């Protein structure tokens, strides 16, 4: 899985390229995100392509947050569909993550002023 990454003033924005995150590809996602996580203290994951996420995907996102937090960084999410948002809310993970409508809002939340 190849994850496109965008660096906005040291804020890394990663967009998950799949439509679904389930037990079948959450392992691939973790591997693909590993390198990005190593180099990012300010990370935004864009969910705009994701139509479905199950507990495996939620678990993977949660592990990303732990890794970034362990390095003193922060992880913010954005671009969730209603169904994906519902999944986060179902397990109350929306209280754990900062979730924004789009990547711009998420990048701004890091205190970066885009010009």
């Amino acid at each position, binding site marked *: 899985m190849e994850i496109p990454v965008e660096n906005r003033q040291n804020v890394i924005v990663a967009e998950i390229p799949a439509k679904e995150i389930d037990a079948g590809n959450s392992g691939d996602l973790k591997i693909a995100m590993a390198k990005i996580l190593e180099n990012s203290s300010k990370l935004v994951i864009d969910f705009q392509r994701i139509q479905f996420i199950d*507990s495996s995907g*939620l678990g993977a996102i949660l592990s990303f947050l732990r890794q970034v937090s362990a390095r003193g960084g922060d992880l913010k999410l954005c671009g969730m569909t209603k169904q994906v948002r519902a999944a986060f809310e179902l*397990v109350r993970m929306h209280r754990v993550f900062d979730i924004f409508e789009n990547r711009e809002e998420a990048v701004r939340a890091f205190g970066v002023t885009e010009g």
Partner: protein
Amino acid sequence: MAGIERLRPVPGSSEKQVKPRSFRLARGFQHVSLRIFLSLLPPIVVAVIQHLIWPLIEPHWWFFFYPAVFLSAWIGGVWGGIVSAGFSVVLVWWSFVPPVHILFKDEPYFLIPATVFFLMAIVFSLFQGRLKEAMERTRQALAEMRLSARKLREAYDQNAALITQASDGIFIADLDGRLLDVNETGCLMLGYSLEELIGQPLFSFIPPRDSERLDRAREQLLTGGFQIEEWSLLCKTGDWCVVEASAKILADGRWQIFLRDITARKQVEKHLQQVRRAKDALSKCNQALIRATDEASLLKQVCDVIVQDAGYALCWVGRAEHDETKSVTVLAQSGLGADYLDNLHITWDDSERGRGPTGTCIRTMRAVTAADIAVDMAMAPWRQEALGHGYASSLAIPVMLGTETAGALMIYATEADAFQAKEMEMLTELANDLAYGVSALRTRAEREKAERELISLNAELEQRVLARTREVQTAREHEFEIGRRIQETLLVDPPPRHLPGVRIATLAEPSQRIDGDFIVFMEPRGGSFDVVVGDVMGKGIPAALLAAATKAHLLKALGQLSGISADGRLPEPKDIVTITHADIVHQLISLDSFVTLCYARIDHVSGVIEIVDCGHTGTVQLHARTGTTQLLRGNNLPLGIRESEIYEQQSFSFEAGDVLLFFSDGITEARDSAGETFGPERLQECIRTHAQLEPDDLIHVIRNTVQDFCRSEFMTDDMTIVAVRLDQVGRSVMQAEMIIKSDLRQLFKVREFVRSSCAGLPETLLDEDGVSKLELAVDETVSNIMKHAHSGQTNLKILIEAEAFAERMVFRLHHGGPTFQPKAVCLPQLNGSRQSGLGLYITSKCVDDVRYYQDADGSNCIALTKVFRKHSRNGSEIPWKFQSKIGRT
């Protein structure tokens, strides 16, 4: 003696001693006056004689008066002489000096001879006094000499008597040890005459082993002092006497020896020592008696004690055998020369070998001694052997057991006549104690043997009883097993598992392995099924046979009525029961039995249950919507009570999720220790409490609850339960299924299947959100099956069924993995600290009911039910069907 007598007061002398001193003086005075008066007589006599012879003989004036004065002084002492001299002068002056008889004489010269005479007379008197005193002293000296000589003679005689008659022997020998003199006692002591002893050396009377000791004694005596030692002396008779010798070397160089015969004392001491040893032996034997555990060791210990502690040469215990020869067997022995016993051949019959001490003792039941084996005629057969072993005397003491002589205790001594009365008495007591000990040990041994035999017999009996019980038990087990199989196969139908939306579980636990409870499942037509739960009065095989007959008649009635139904309608339950009753009522009445049953027809399409309750316990219905329970009961009589009974049925409605529970009276009439019954109320409460359980689990919970109530694992009555869960009512509007490989990469197909299955449903029943949740729930569940139940084995398959009804959508996931226990999974922490169980949690939140059960094929199945939503007035979503869900938080 004389000295002692002088010291004694002479009878009557005490009176003199108390007389007054004046009396003694007067008596002395009288004594002196008399002597002086008597001293006057000689001058008077001489004067008379002079006067008579005066004419014849020219008087020599003083011639005769000198002797007279001398005599007077002899009589009256000095004063007698002086008085006599004066008196003589007066007599001569008056009578013979001329002129006589005139006081004054003309011849004054006459005064000279008178004066001379007077002076001479005084001298004579003094001389006489001295002479008399000298004579008196001489006389006293002579008397004393005679007394001394007499005493000396007496002393000599006494000494001679002492020596001659002394109780000790007195031997005088020279330094070479040759006897010079021996007193009479000494002679008697050795048995020789004095002549035989004189000149004999002392060495000839002592044992050779004491010669050196005698030399040493002499050497020591020569250095001074004296010696007291004990010696053995050979008498003329050849016997040895024991003496205590007190010896010294006299001043004249002779060897003086006082010998005291202590043979008797030594014998007494020896006897006392033997008695003391016998006492010790008796005491030790008694101790051995107390500690003895077996007869052989007791006998051996007693023999050892008699030899080692009492000092006898040999001891053995013989048993009197009652064989032909009446032999005596040696049981135990101790002591030197025990090989003596090897060839004894002692008997106790009246033969030569039976007349010895042992045989005689056993025969006569009294102690027998052989005081001197060398001369005892009874010891003739064993004399040579006994003497060869150094035995000189023996004692046989009977060992009495009751009134019979069991044997003898034999004791041998190295000296003759070794057994004295006191010693024999103690040894007899010892033998009696030994007999008591043997008797006690035998009694104990017999008792222990009897106890062992009794224990053995008991154990054997117990084993036989156990074996017989096992045989009977095995036979009963076998019989019961047959009965149980009959009941399982004939009386209890297996619950149908292929009815969609219906899950049934049965429990039939007879109290005696086989009983009269029966369960019948019938499916006369699709859409409904019949459940019959019956109970024949009584237990065991008769009840089981009646139950089988009733069941057969029920099936027969169903067949008959179905056959005659013109319009193809199902025969009514009440008709089936009525026909069945009619068929068996006579037999039941003749058998004095009856049958209670509940015939229920469950139509899961119409949601109606028809019940014919024939005196049964009723049926509990759990209303899933309200969580309440209801006891459904009829009022028909049991089968077999009354002929021509017409049975009625009752109708009840049910909804999806309801549970029907049929049961026997063994459930509700189970009693606790206080006698209180479990009752239908507790049963309903139990069902309400565990309403979410699948039927299989529910019946076991009920059974365990009843057992806990009764506090017994074994019930006194049969327990029969049929639990029916009706998950769907009405006909399905859609059915679909798919089979996928157990591969996580196939999950997207599952989601597509969910969406396609829900595609035809109206939006009003299931909107996009509901579909998404179903999609998520099915995805999570299939994912869990693949990961956990199938452990990632991609070659396995999963069957997914989708079925839609009027009010709900059901997805059933069948898999071949192990049964999943959702309670074993911990719920996740929603703050992200624990992710395990997240899929289960999501599933439970996305659907209204999740159930795990086995399908008709035995595979595990997970059913996910989503109830179609209805909107309340305020627009919130209300699940209006299932009240219970797993994973509720």
